[in-house]
């Protein structure tokens, strides 16, 4: 199983060098007992070099493409950067600019609205579906496969397809179907009030399957004895769900809730592809605003504002998760 990896990777020269280098150290029989490595020679004999070679991919990749950019984001949020002249420190000016931008407040509202709608649509449905599916005795796999199919469709394809479904004309796909029962035609994503719920509907459809599978996995972890015990106490089906199933799922429910909030706070793809923030900025989100600041600016990237907004959003989410876990740490223990 290990062999195919270098076979497929002739291009990855650093790792190739790394592996051959460890191979040469291998030829010397190295005593591995000695833990303490004070001088270079004992360090080498103790496997210090091969340890470092195995750690190298992680250190290099995370250093360059994770830590360096993260630190740089914080620095840049206090700087004026234009890639031509040296960056200048400008204090809190970037933050001030963002807060003075009226679109920022619209985007903040829209993102909050998206997150709220996504909770209303998207939080109960997977739970209910998973509880119902866990009681299926025949062909449960079929249920899971069907539920998971939308997750497998590439999100870009899903959005573009739904965008066509949402066609506002009477011959649009959804309007045709609703027309059969005498409803519509609806304007869907072309209407400022209806656009956001339409987008959330698609996002919920696209993401529900993943959550269902997680809940199903958690449901099989519920000890059957608990149900036996509840029945001895005379509990019916509803009371078993309320007093056994839901409390047993509490831990996973709490985590999916906060992760959903963190995910929806950074929503980009759906509003970007469906409406590009319109109509009249009614669906522009925070991440889209960051994108506009940084990459859609005719005057060149406004990297200062973009990073300032990123940093504010990240700090808010970090604070939110911290408070959330503090508040709920008592509840999630069984």
């Amino acid at each position, binding site marked *: *199983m*290990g062999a195919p*990896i270098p076979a497929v990777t002739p291009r*990855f020269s650093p*790792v190739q060098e790394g592996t051959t280098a*460890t*191979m040469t*150290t291998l030829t010397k*029989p190295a005593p591995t007992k000695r833990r303490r490595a004070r001088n270079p020679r004992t360090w080498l004999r103790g*496997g210090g070099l*091969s340890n470092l070679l195995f*750690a190298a*991919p992680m*250190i290099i*990749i995370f250093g360059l493409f*994770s*830590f360096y*950019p993260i630190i*740089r*984001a914080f620095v*840049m949020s206090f700087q004026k950067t234009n890639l031509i002249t040296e960056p200048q420190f400008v204090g809190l000016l970037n933050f001030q600019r963002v807060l003075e931008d009226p679109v920022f407040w619209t985007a903040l509202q829209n993102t909050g609205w998206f997150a709220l709608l996504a909770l209303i649509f998207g939080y109960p449905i997977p739970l209910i579906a998973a509880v119902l599916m866990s*009681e299926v005795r025949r062909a449960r*796999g079929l249920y899971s496969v*069907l539920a*998971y*199919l*939308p997750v497998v*469709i590439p999100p870009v*394809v899903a959005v573009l*397809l739904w965008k066509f479904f949402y066609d506002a004309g009477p011959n649009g*796909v959804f309007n*045709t179907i609703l027309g059969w029962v005498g409803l519509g035609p609806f304007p869907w994503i072309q209407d400022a009030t209806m656009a956001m719920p339409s987008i959330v509907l698609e996002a919920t459809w*696209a993401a529900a*399957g993943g*959550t269902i*599978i*997680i809940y199903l*996995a*958690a449901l*099989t972890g519920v000890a*059957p004895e608990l*149900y036996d015990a509840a029945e001895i106490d005379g509990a019916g*089906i509803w009371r078993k769900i309320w007093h056994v199933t839901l409390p047993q799922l509490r*831990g*996973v429910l709490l*985590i999916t809730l906060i*992760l959903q909030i*963190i*995910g929806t*706070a*950074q*929503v*980009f793809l759906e509003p970007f*592809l469906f409406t590009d923030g319109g109509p009249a900025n009614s669906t522009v989100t925070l991440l889209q605003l*960051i994108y506009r600041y940084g*990459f859609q600016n005719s005057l060149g990237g406004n*990297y200062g504002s*973009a*990073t300032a907004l*990123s940093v504010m959003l990240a700090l808010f989410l970090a604070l939110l998760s911290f408070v959330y876990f503090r508040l709920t740490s008592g509840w999630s223990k069984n």
Partner: protein
Amino acid sequence: MTTSPTLGGVVTAEAEAAILTEPNSPLRPRRGKKAKKAASSEGLDRGIISSNEWSRRGIRRSANGIQITLLVLLAIGGLGPILWLAKAAITPTQDTLRTPMALFPNGFAWDNVSKAWTTIGLDVQFMNTVWVALGVLVMQLIVTMTAGYVLAILKPAYAKVLNALVLATLFVPSVVLLVPLYLTILDVPFLGISLQNTFWAVWLPAGANAFNILLVKRFFENLPPEIFEAARTEGAGSFRIFWQIVLPLSKPIIGVVSVFAVIAAWKDFLWPKLVLALPEVQPLSVRLPQLQQTIDLGTYLAALAISTLVPIVLFIIFQGLFLKSAGMGGAVKG
């Protein structure tokens, strides 16, 4: 990928939830099979509804009714859009526009597919997507396997620091990375070159995936340490232990990481859009939204269908692995 703050990214975040809440994940290598069997047989023995209750006609009827309704809803939601897309891909444009829900009123338009493939050059973007996904897969396997080996088995003195640093990146929302990582790609530190419009711009940052490292590290920690001690006393160096013992034992976790890597790469939109600006290096997800305006609807829908084909086929072949990865419970057999 960490750099795609889309709702699609929430799927991995949700899988993350399952990990965080499930310390006894059946992903653990040794006890995996037994635990899985035990769980599924218990699951069959009883769920929320007891066998007593199942034998009551009213409950059985309503439960069956609910389950069949659920199956129909899942089929409509999961399979419906895919089947519609497959139909529309081979339907003449005018029919799709006028009667989107009719089934081939005026015959087929097979040439939609060939037009999408050759005339608009989708074959190029298709191969680009394949290369991006394969490169991401290889990159993530190299980094996660070596990192897991260092952190869980070799454990040099600095392993704890590395582990804490890598874990810390899990808590930094990916939005922070967007601008500074883009600037890093334009001018890579130490190398002084720009990776823009090369696949390396997607491959290298994809390696910095703390979540997969966490998965692999957990897996390695559960391998019996006696094996490594025995190998060491027989004089095997750390490279040989990695190659001949750790990797062959890692097949299950390599499968899970591979699924995550390929699917995430296939789905990713914002990051490749930023760093792959030229059409000849763009993957499907970046190219499709641009095609929308310029080509005939039938051809466009065929292009969407082509882009969906590979993930769907992969899912159907490896559905067990997909659902296990998504749920991390392994309780759902595909």
